[in-house]
């Protein structure tokens, strides 16, 4: 292999510097500037963008993003963990079939999947009609908080299921049998053997749901009708409609910090790099 030198990796290294490192640095730099006028060469360093974010309005928005993402992650986990156990208990070929069936919807464009829920939840939609049949008065579920959380659960559910399924599949059934033979009841076996052994899958599943959920702006826009702004919506708004890039950059930095903090915590729990299950494709 000595015929190949490491410098064939350098062009992409340069590409990464230009299109990954520099843009990040530019945004970090922007976040510390106030109303720069680049043409005139005037820019002053300030912390006011970060101070502006400390306003209760924005803190509430941050809290809401966090809350929705946590709830969505929790719901995904509560469905995916028992489901993963059920799938593992199936015979081999049916396991694969079931997993493929769970993944196929992921192949449909993300926006179409979200749009489908707009159709289902709208005032004239099937679910509202069903509620009307039961005697409830006009319940439009579209553009509510529940719709936003539902959208998150629906879109990111497979990200939770796959890593959990992979880690459950790796557990040697003999270990579980040994635990019961040695006198553990079903609950103890579950708590002391199954949960710890599948912890890496649980943690990476939670990460893979939490991260896109906390940073989304599409789901909250389409299913929340723009009524429930999340941190992603705020960033989009600052960059695309209000043109306040400095504040937008500061919010992006806050979002990045949250993500890296959560990643750090996840790494502390599992003690190693995240294993994403790697079978989305």
């Amino acid at each position, binding site marked *: *292999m*000595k*015929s*190949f030198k*490491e*410098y*064939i*990796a*350098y*062009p*992409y*290294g340069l*590409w*990464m*510097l230009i*299109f*990954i490192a520099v*843009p*990040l640095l*530019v*945004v970090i730099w*922007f976040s510390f500037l106030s109303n720069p006028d680049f043409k005139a060469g005037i820019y002053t360093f300030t912390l006011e963008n970060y101070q502006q974010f400390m306003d209760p309005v924005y803190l509430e928005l941050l809290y809401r993003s966090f809350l929705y993402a946590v709830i969505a992650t929790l719901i995904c986990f509560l*469905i995916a963990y028992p*489901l993963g156990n*059920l799938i593992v208990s199936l015979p081999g070929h049916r396991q694969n079939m079931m997993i493929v069936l*769970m993944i*196929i*919807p992921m*192949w*449909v*464009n993300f*926006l*179409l*999947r979200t*749009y*489908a829920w*707009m*159709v*289902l939840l*709208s005032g*004239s939609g*099937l679910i509202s*009609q069903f509620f009307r049949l039961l005697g409830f008065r006009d319940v439009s579920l579209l553009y509510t908080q529940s719709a936003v959380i539902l959208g998150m659960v*629906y879109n990111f559910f497979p990200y939770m299921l796959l890593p959990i399924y992979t880690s459950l599949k790796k557990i040697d059934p003999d270990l579980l049998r040994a635990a019961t033979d040695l006198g553990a009841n079903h609950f103890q076996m579950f708590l002391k053997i199954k949960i710890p052994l599948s912890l890496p899958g649980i943690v990476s599943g939670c990460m893979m749901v939490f991260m896109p959920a*906390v*940073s989304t702006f*599409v789901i909250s*826009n*389409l299913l929340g009708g723009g009524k429930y702004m999340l941190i*992603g919506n705020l*960033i989009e708004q600052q*960059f695309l409609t209000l043109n306040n*890039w400095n504040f937008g*950059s500061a919010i*992006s930095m806050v*979002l*990045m910090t949250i*993500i890296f903090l959560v*990643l750090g915590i996840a790494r502390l729990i599992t003690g190693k790099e995240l294993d994403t299950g790697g079978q989305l*494709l």
Partner: protein
Amino acid sequence: MRKFFKNLAFGLILLFLYAPILVLIIYSFNDSKIMGPWAGFTLKWYVMLFQDRYILQALYYTLIIAVVATTVSTLVGTVSALGIYRMRSKLKRPYLLLNNIPVLVPDIVMGITLMSLFIFIGMKMGLTTIIIAHITFCIPYVILAVLPRFNRLPENIFEAALDLGATPRQAFWKVLFPEILPGVTSGALIAFTLSIDDFVISFFTAGNGVSNLSITIYSMAKAGINPKINALSTIMFGCIMVLLVLINIRSEKGIKNIQ
């Protein structure tokens, strides 16, 4: 009884996952603009879809972007993975760290950072900027798919081929390449899927004028429900199903050939 509850659980979850898609498909044939009761069968949404120049153009852009981004990122990613595999210097760690950033950072942050760069250096937003953005977020996945293949290679496989009389070109194409090919294929597939499916990063790097399917769907959906989107999703879902069936048949054939 246990089996009944098990099947019920599977049934419910599959209903949850597929109901929205099925409803879209059914309503794409419904002769009514609102998603209310059934008003008769029609194909007019499909006709209108194919007369919509914006959607057709968006489809065209989506495919162009995906093909260019996949080709470039697969080539560059594979070559770079070979370089990384040979890297002995202190560069390796920061290099891999930088490569992982697009995987870890949320899409929206990738989108706004690239957009800031393009505007900062005065680049006109359009097809070029989207393609650059797509290449940037695709290469890391190609490298993550190919690099393990290199790491698994026997130490001196290339030199062995040379010793046995192969020219460097033969040694590369006949010995090295077949070993890493599965990684390259799955890298290319991941890149293609990511590019076709991407909305957020394209949204920020597209500017006016150019838009891919995701962006078009987003702006249509934001305005409310539109039966043309139903027709579009039905077609896309149909393509995916056909693709899956084809892949299945091919892999079953492959298994038979091995046997």
